[in-house]
């Protein structure tokens, strides 16, 4: 193999599994260390700079970082990254003084943001400090989009959302709430320099062809619409027996909200096997904890009704069968159909995009699925003035993805307004600094804690089920949070190898607790992977390969289960190994003009 090019900013970035997996690439280990040091304000600001909604995401994020966490590969449970983020948000001091302070000198450009969700708000935050005049339109009464209408208050208290939405709106955004944009043509006819569409995936899927759907309509609701009605207090109660159709997180929110509005016997009925449900495992656990039965492998057949009143639903029992490509088919088991009693049904089987307000003669192409054609790098549509982001760009994902889209699209809009090429994008900001403080002393806590993941305490069920606004999770106590932070392996503190200093004493190879380092003769990658002390079979993880050493061997380090404990560097007599902290930050639109953006203060 060729020596690894560690100058490529993505090499060390990839070693930081959590950050790499995060769509917004939040520097996770950095803020976890700050939480350990009880520097909550600083930890919050690292988050805010990157993911804009630390308080919201610390409660509701889909946490793609956690399954990626290295701890999963060496132990079992990932670091509770998401809930540690909440600790920073809960305990922060005055963060506003660290945020950009308006009013900003105008740059003469005007932008329209359609939809007030996470993508648009991220865009607003990135562009406002550059002097853009930003007009934000939303049909709701306040900003936040689906974070407000679909995430129930017992998971995300309204004041947390309001606080973080207001940090952005206070930057001088012109908001036009309770305004449904009916025509993109009309918006384009005004003097906006660019238009951003962040309208999400607002249409909940229905089951229009299922027998009885029309007749029993009064007691059948679309999940996300029903959740929005609850959030805006149009709906205040539900009948006792509720069936929720669907197995995603919306279904979990529907069933848990039902329990709080009067639902006593609430069942979730899902087509797929329990393990394959789309809902996050912890959301399923929380639902079960609230006495909600989850019935899997049941396909809805009909809504049953008497005299125009819903009485229940009929289901066919199925089992999952997989072909050789792993493709799943749900085949009937042949057992009798099942009738489940209900007097209200919530349909939460997915949501889709809907653009009735975009005229089809604006030079803005739609594909065969009726989705706008959007460039995956620039987020620009085929109408050069119109950009998309969040769920409206490529279909429903999650908040953190929408935030990442917002950052990228903001860079594009800024480049577009400056008349530059949209493909000439700024490189990430990176910094690699030695953590050596003296002989065998590091400026990070290199010891590896064996603690298992700590549980977040919850409020009593008897209290939370009575009040839909009572937050269920209480968040970590500071002392527990500290212990949880110690589980982080500091994967951003990189093992940097300098071959010209190596005397090949093999001390690093002998001491490495997880047998990551091998000195051997070079070979092509597949062969080299097999030649290591423990064969490197996780192909998703890279090998760090040195150039040839004096004895003709090379140093090969398998990044897979490295604990970043620093022992290789401590046992190295010549400092050929050094522990160096790698800071990687996606460059945002407001940081493009300065060479070294102000990330930490």
């Amino acid at each position, binding site marked *: 193999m060729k020596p690894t090019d560690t100058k490529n900013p993505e090499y060390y970035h990839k070693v930081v599994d959590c950050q790499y997996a995060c769509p917004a690439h939040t520097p996770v280990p950095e803020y976890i260390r700050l939480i350990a040091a009880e520097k909550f304000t600083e930890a919050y600001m690292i988050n805010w700079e990157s993911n804009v909604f630390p308080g919201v995401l610390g409660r509701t994020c889909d946490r793609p970082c956690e399954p990626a966490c290295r701890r999963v590969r060496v132990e079992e449970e990932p670091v509770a990254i998401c809930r540690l983020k909440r600790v920073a948000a809960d305990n922060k001091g005055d963060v506003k003084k660290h945020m950009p302070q308006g009013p900003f000198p105008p740059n003469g450009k005007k932008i329209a943001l359609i939809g007030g969700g996470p993508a648009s708000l991220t865009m607003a935050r990135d562009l406002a400090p550059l002097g853009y005049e930003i007009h934000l339109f939303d049909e709701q009464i306040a900003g936040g989009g689906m974070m407000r209408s679909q995430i129930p208050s017992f998971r995300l208290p309204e004041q947390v959302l309001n606080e973080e939405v207001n940090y952005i709106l206070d930057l001088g955004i012109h908001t036009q709430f309770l305004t449904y944009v009916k025509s993109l043509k009309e918006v384009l006819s005004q003097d906006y320099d660019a238009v951003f569409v962040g309208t999400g995936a607002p249409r909940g899927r229905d089951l229009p062809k299922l027998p009885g759907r029309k007749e029993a309509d009064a007691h059948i609701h679309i999940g996300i619409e029903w959740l929005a009605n609850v959030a805006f207090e149009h709906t205040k109660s539900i009948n006792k027996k509720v069936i929720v159709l669907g197995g995603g997180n919306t279904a979990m929110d529907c069933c848990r909200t039902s329990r709080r509005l009067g639902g006593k016997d609430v069942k979730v009925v899902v087509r797929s096997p329990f393990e394959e449900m789309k809902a996050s495992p912890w959301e399923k656990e929380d639902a079960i904890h609230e006495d909600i039965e989850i019935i899997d492998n049941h396909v809805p057949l009909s809504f049953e009704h008497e005299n125009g009143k819903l009485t229940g639903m009929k289901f066919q029992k199925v089992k999952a069968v997989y072909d050789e490509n792993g493709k799943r088919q749900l085949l009937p088991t042949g057992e009798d159909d099942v009738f489940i009693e209900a007097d209200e049904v919530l349909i939460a089987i997915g949501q889709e995009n809907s653009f009735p307000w975009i005229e089809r003669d604006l030079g803005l192409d739609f594909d065969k699925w009726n989705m706008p054609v959007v460039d995956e790098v620039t987020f620009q549509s085929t109408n050069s003035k119109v950009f998309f982001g969040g769920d409206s760009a490529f279909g429903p994902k999650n908040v953190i993805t929408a935030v990442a889209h917002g950052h990228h699209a903001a860079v594009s809009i800024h480049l577009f307004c400056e008349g530059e090429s949209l493909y000439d994008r700024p490189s990430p900001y990176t910094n690699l600094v030695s953590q050596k403080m003296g002989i065998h002393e590091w400026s990070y806590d*290199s*010891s590896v804690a064996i603690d298992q993941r700590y549980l977040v305490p919850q409020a009593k069920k008897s209290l939370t089920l009575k009040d839909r606004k009572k937050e269920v999770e209480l968040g970590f106590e500071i002392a527990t949070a500290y212990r949880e932070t110690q589980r982080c392996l500091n994967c951003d503190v990189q093992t940097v190898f300098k071959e010209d200093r190596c005397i090949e004493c*093999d*001390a690093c190879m002998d*001491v490495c607790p*997880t047998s990551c380092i091998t000195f051997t003769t070079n070979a092509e990658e597949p062969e080299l992977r097999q030649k290591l002390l*423990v064969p490197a*079979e996780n192909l998703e993880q890279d090998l760090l390969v040195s150039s040839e050493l004096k004895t003709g061997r090379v140093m090969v380090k398998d990044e897979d289960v490295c604990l970043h404990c620093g*022992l290789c560097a401590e046992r190295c007599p010549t400092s050929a190994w050094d522990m160096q902290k790698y800071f990687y930050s996606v460059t945002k639109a407001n940081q493009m003009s300065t060479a070294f953006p102000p990330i930490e203060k």
Partner: protein
Amino acid sequence: MSYLKPQFKHPKLPKNKIGYTIKEYEGPLSTLCAGCGHDSISAAIVQACFEMSVEPHKVAKISGIGCSSKTPTYFLGNSHGFNSVHGRMPSVATGASMSNKDMVYFGVSGDGDSASIGMGQFVHVIRRNLNMVYIVMNNGCYGLTKGQDSATADQGSKSKAGSVNPFQAIDLASLAIELGAPFVAQSFSGDKQQLVPIIKAAMHHKGFAFINVISPCVTFNNNAGSTKSYDYVRQHIEATSTLDFVPEMPIITTKYDQGKSTKVALHDGSIIQLNKLATDWDPEDRVSVVNALQQARLKNEILTGLLYVNTEWNDLHGTLKTCKTPLNKLTEKDLCPGEEILEGINRNFR
């Protein structure tokens, strides 16, 4: 500074025949200087014991005083150990071996512990042919007292402070052969590929097995002009052979040139397979070995590999004709079999 090794291990760490991973043969974190050759030798011992599937409780590590003699703390953490008096490791090992002959004995010593203060003990343990593996971690200096020249420092070798050693060196391998040690090997801490099979063979050899390992002292004797530095040793190393240790009777599929390949069968049926690199050298011919060592010395070469092996000599238990059961397992009934038997013995003398 880290004082503890993280407890996590690679989830796919291979297991040996008795179900242990190499972790079960390791010890706590070494406190020797970073990069010390001794740590590499410790790692080689760990590797050899893991590969041989030795039960850790059937191994005893015995040492004297010095950097080398500290190392048993850092390997085979689940085995027995005795850190004894300076230069007196062979006496303690003899006592231990006498009382329990069923164990594998590792004597770990250094150039000071063996070639100076312990020289008397060293020569006599060879003379008695005690069944043990005697490893000298030889760095040519007294590392624990800031790097003075030791008795194995080569004449003309330069110390870190710049002084040149005026005295002749004691060549421990030649001495051991001269004294009749039946298994003598020499190796380098930086060459585990050679060292691990040597240790494995030494463990299987019944009788005294001596391994002199050149082990650079990174702190006091790794400077230019030293003849025990990583660079010097790598440049002057000359192997007698490449060596494979085969614990069970193999199907012979040697890929070596037949004329150059030699096999030595040990008592227990295991085999050392050697691919000779040196000419005029036969590991079972003492004269040729002494000759090869002298020739190498003239050329400033360090001859490594298995130098000499003789499987015919009786070890101490054989010479003393001790009973089959280890002495420490004999009960009072075995030792005091009663008046009647005593009478019988006495009758024999009348």
